[in-house]
């Protein structure tokens, strides 16, 4: 079932749909979850926080809510130290931009048992990401999952094109559609922010137009072969799916090649144990 990533204001208009409700403040999490639960086979709350993780006060009332908390950074560990037990007990995943100190912060959070996701684009520091990926997939000590690397590993197929691991970022049109406050539909968060919509209202959600757009996106990789795009000739194609083809990235091939090797190695040796309190 396709999940709809939507702002809080649309909850009442999307009854019966699986929702990922987007709120812009941690203060809105509980109410948004309550409202969504009453009307839909609700999925999660995505909270866009403007402040670092250490400035957010997690609450007991968040228990039982699946929360994707998008923060610019984690702030100071000293402010998190006394909240770790609560944070670990919540259905919380912290999303961080995968740049600069956040890569070390992601490892730090995972090492104390908090699930974390890093987001990145074609201009990423691939070498630093490779270090984090290695830690995530074959780190010697138990830790919380670090995404999108776990999803990459799950989606990877050694003898075929893998599945789209963009789901770890809610960025997979066959699983997630993104709606703005007016109910316009985009295939990805980026396209929603850029104003590139495939339907202009909720009433068109189930239209053939949207279905065709999703299908076209799922098959877009074929076009790269027809264009003889550099990604189509890349050995790491099967794992990256040309996700960064549009941004002419430099260094991603080596990163995904290393990722492939690490995944294969993990399949031989088994993953590090998951973090347990």
């Amino acid at each position: 079932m396709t999940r709809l990533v939507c702002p809080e204001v649309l909850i009442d208009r999307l009854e019966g749909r699986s929702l990922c409700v987007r709120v812009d403040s941690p203060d809105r999490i509980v109410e948004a979850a309550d409202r969504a639960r009453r009307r839909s086979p609700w999925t999660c709350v995505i909270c866009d926080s403007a402040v670092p993780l250490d400035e957010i006060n997690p609450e007991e009332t968040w228990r039982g809510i699946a929360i994707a908390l998008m923060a610019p950074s984690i702030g100071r560990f000293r402010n998190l130290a006394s909240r770790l037990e609560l944070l670990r007990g919540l259905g919380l995943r912290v999303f961080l931009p995968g740049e600069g100190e956040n890569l070390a912060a992601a490892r730090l959070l995972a090492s104390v048992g908090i699930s974390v996701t890093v987001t990145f684009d074609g201009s990423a520091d691939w070498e630093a990401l490779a270090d984090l990926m290695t830690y995530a997939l074959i780190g010697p000590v138990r830790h919380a999952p670090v995404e999108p690397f776990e999803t990459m590993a799950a989606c990877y197929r050694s003898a075929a094109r893998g599945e789209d691991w963009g789901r770890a970022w809610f960025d997979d049109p066959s699983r997630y559609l993104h709606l703005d406050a007016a109910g316009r539909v985009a295939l990805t968060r980026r396209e929603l922010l850029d104003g590139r919509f495939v339907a202009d209202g909720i009433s068109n959600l189930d239209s053939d137009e949207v279905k065709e757009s999703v299908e076209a996106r799922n098959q877009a990789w074929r076009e790269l072969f027809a264009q003889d795009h550099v990604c189509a000739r890349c050995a790491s194609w099967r794992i990256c799916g040309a996700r960064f083809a549009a941004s002419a990235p430099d260094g991603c091939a080596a990163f995904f090649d290393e990722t492939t090797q690490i995944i294969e190695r993990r399949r031989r040796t088994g993953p590090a144990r998951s973090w347990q309190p």
Partner: protein
Amino acid sequence: MANILLTNKCIRECPYCFAGREMAQSEGQDFLSWENAVYLADFLTASGERRVSLLGGEPSLHPEFVDITLYFVARGFDVNVFTSAIMSSARLETLARHVAAAPAERLNFVCNLNDPEQTPTTASEREQVEAFLARLGAWTMPAFNIYRPDFRLEFLFGLVERFGLRKRLRLGITHPIAGAGNAWIRAGEIGAVIERLCSYRHAFEAALIRPSFDCGFPLCRVVDADLGWLTRLGASTNFKCRPAIDITPDMEVYCCFPLSFLDRRSVFEFDSFRQIVEHYRKLQERVRTEIAGIYDECGSCIHRSEATCAGGGVCHIVNRLAAEAPATLKKIADDQACLS
């Protein structure tokens, strides 16, 4: 237990300093990074280690000292922080506020205290130390480094009482750092030092403070009566000299400060902490094949052969070799370099 150096910087210049040469010669990065802190926590956890010491230099000079300390606690380690306790009121306030949330049994500040008369310091520094003890005394174990035979302990008993410090006193005999010119206790002085130490028995008993010996005390210089007293008091006596394992901010590792110039390695060369300990234990053994101990009689001593006593600190032997047989020392270093 691993000693992790958060920084090579220090605010004091103690005459006996073990780390002075390291700090003076350090060319690496000044502060331990988060990447390396997490790596070390993983490395030690995977090695089955559950205790860690954070030191420097002065560890509290690390901009994220509080964070890294709490991180190691959060990772389940019992953490010892070796500090001079000299820090700004703002830093102390931050430290005290956050430490209050950490489990007391898992975090211990080992405060190196100097006799204000024999090792004079500024009034400002004394005030900062007292402010630290006033705020964090319950978390603090006093420590004293004996670097002159006429040392005095009276001031320590006063501080323990006044600030409610933990009732265990860590006592170290200061050791030579070859080429550093630090103040240290000669082998021939150790007997008198131990005798003087035990002359404080009534003060220890009255205050219910238990001494805890650091490395390098030779068993033969403690008379049986004093050994009995120490045992009854519950003192932690130690006549061994094991690899301390110091890890620098840029992830170099060596046996201990005095032997840091002999065989420096990268932590990344090793698969486990046990492997590091074993590597440097071999170094110590190699040194002792040249000279068994700090006294002539160590070579035939049953306590050394039975491993009840190490025969004093290997750093004394290295210091002697550096002065009397530098070629031998170089050969030892070359032999070590060949070990993979």
